[in-house]
């Protein structure tokens, strides 16, 4: 006589295969962990793990490679797009990503990112913008908002002295070589889902050989902003999103044809 075993538990949520098992070094509330997970989920869903080569940058995500269970190299500050170019040109059939913060990419690495995009380098860039230098303790970044207080703009960013923030997605979208440039945010569940979709599109762009893709992801830095994670999410939605509007800045016709 057959018996029906009752299902007592079912695993509905687990660590993606592409994420390594290790304790986080990111601060409580930091959205790097969410971004890591989204990237890993997409890699799992697309079955790309064994084809991946990540290029880590310098900043809080300097140890990004600890969290992902695939091959990584570690670039000097700002040079990840150049290093990724070297990897990708030798191994064009592999999938090459960079994971960079705003200090790394939009300041010291501006030359490398602009020219990688202009060349239409077939790599995917994940650009985490949290409006300050997190790792060194919250100094003013090129993305710091006018008036925003940081440890190197203690009275608030004075645009007369320190100039204006750089909107990297808008800037890179002017380049003919760029194929997919979008900005997303992590301030609520809906936007996190939209960010994941964009990450998927960046990978889809690369594996089809359609050229340079970048997803800018607005992120929070509660520790250096000096507020708790919930307040940080609100601040991001209310202050950062208006200055850095979410949206699609460049999607070529070929990328638009992609159906996932």
């Amino acid at each position, binding site marked *: 006589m057959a018996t029906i075993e009752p299902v007592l538990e079912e695993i509905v949520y687990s660590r993606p295969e592409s994420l*390594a098992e290790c304790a986080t070094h990111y601060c409580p509330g930091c959205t790097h962990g969410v971004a890591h997970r989204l990237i890993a989920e997409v890699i799992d869903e697309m079955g790309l*793990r*064994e*084809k*991946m*080569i990540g*290029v*880590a940058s310098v900043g809080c995500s*300097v*140890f990004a*490679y600890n969290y*992902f*269970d*695939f*091959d*990584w*190299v*570690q*670039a*000097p500050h700002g*040079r990840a797009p*150049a*290093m*990724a*170019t*070297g*990897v*990708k*040109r*030798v*191994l064009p059939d*592999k*999938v090459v990503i960079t994971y960079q913060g705003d200090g790394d990419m939009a300041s010291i690495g501006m*030359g*490398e990112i*602009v*020219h990688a995009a202009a*060349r239409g380098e077939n790599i995917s860039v994940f650009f985490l913008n949290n409006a300050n230098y997190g790792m060194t303790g919250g100094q003013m970044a090129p993305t710091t908002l006018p008036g925003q207080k940081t440890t190197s703009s203690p009275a608030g960013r004075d645009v007369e002295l320190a100039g204006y923030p750089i909107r990297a997605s808008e800037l890179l979208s002017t380049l003919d070589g760029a194929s997919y440039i979008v900005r997303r945010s992590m301030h609520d569940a809906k936007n996190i889902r939209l960010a994941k979709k964009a990450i998927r599109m960046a990978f889809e762009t690369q594996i089809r050989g359609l050229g340079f893709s970048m997803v800018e992801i607005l992120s929070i830095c509660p520790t250096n902003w000096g507020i708790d994670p919930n307040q940080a999410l609100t601040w991001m939605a209310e202050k950062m999103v208006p200055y850095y509007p979410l949206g699609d800045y460049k999607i070529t016709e070929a990328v638009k044809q992609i159906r996932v």
Partner: protein
Amino acid sequence: MARELIKGNEAIAEAAVRAGLHAYFGYPITPQTELLEWMSRRMPELGRAFVQAESELGAINMVYGAACTGARTMTSSSGPGMSLMMEGISYIVATEVPAVLVDVMRGGPGLGNISPAQSDYNQIVHGGGHGDYNMIVLAPANVQEAIDLTVECFDLAEKYRTIAVLLLDGSLGQLMEPAELPPMMPVRETFPAWAATGAEGRKRNILTSIHLNPPDQEMTNLRLLQHWQAVEANEVRFKEYFMDDARFAVIGYGSAGRVALSAVRAARAEGIPVGLLRPISLNPFPTQVIAKLAERIDAFLVTEMSTGQMLEDVRLAVANRRPVEFYGRMGGVVPFPDEILDEIRRLSKGPLSLEGHPRNRWLARMTGAN
């Protein structure tokens, strides 16, 4: 294969191509630009990687990325560009991945000029980048040697998983000589086990230069140094001319050594018992060879196209047991053999002193201060 008339820069480029170069990344700078131009034509037609980078910073980091796959990769530049590459050089050596660099030296410091000089010796041989590290440095004196050492640079870089630099001055980059190129080697199809190539059926490979835990960094420093000791033990290269019965020795590398050879020949015709030691590996430096020579040679003359950078390495080896004199031209000025012949005559006549610094005596002569 037949000898053909070929320009130094182009000979180096083609030698690298034939050594199975997989990826070249560079940026234009005189006097090495023909090398980049040659690669821009040859690499794409062979289906290999070529990128004209946005800067030397870009170029060296593209090399870094390609080197992390274990592919044969190289870049080339000249002084001001090498300065920009110092960042990446430090990272590449720290990560223990192989790469080949070519520095075609010009007059400096600053923008200087585009004429030949040996002004980057300290920067390349003694390290211009941050942290404790060494690179293998080979210095050719003619186009054939430049070809042969280019091929050797790739083998050495891979053997010791470090950077091998071909160091030459602008005149050797620009001059044409008959030379024989090596046979064509294909690009290797396989990649080393340590490389970042995608973790297919194996554990992940992580290539990094960061060791936040000080004892880990210290262990890395010790490992790098132990590897370097193997280089020092096995890879010293030099060439001697007329040294068997020499009482005086001229020491010069690259073009300065080549000019000195003409002077030594002329001095021999005058009956002066002088020979030439031409260091080929500048790092590791033939210290022991010079130390041994100091036991039987009466006096040394160091000649360089700089203000005396290698001079200090010679002085360390001689250890003040014999007089050392110096003759340098710089700023893009190449010495004539007659100038060095005059110095050899002066050396052979004496009197010479162990007191003072040879650079000071030379500077006084150069500026007429004595």
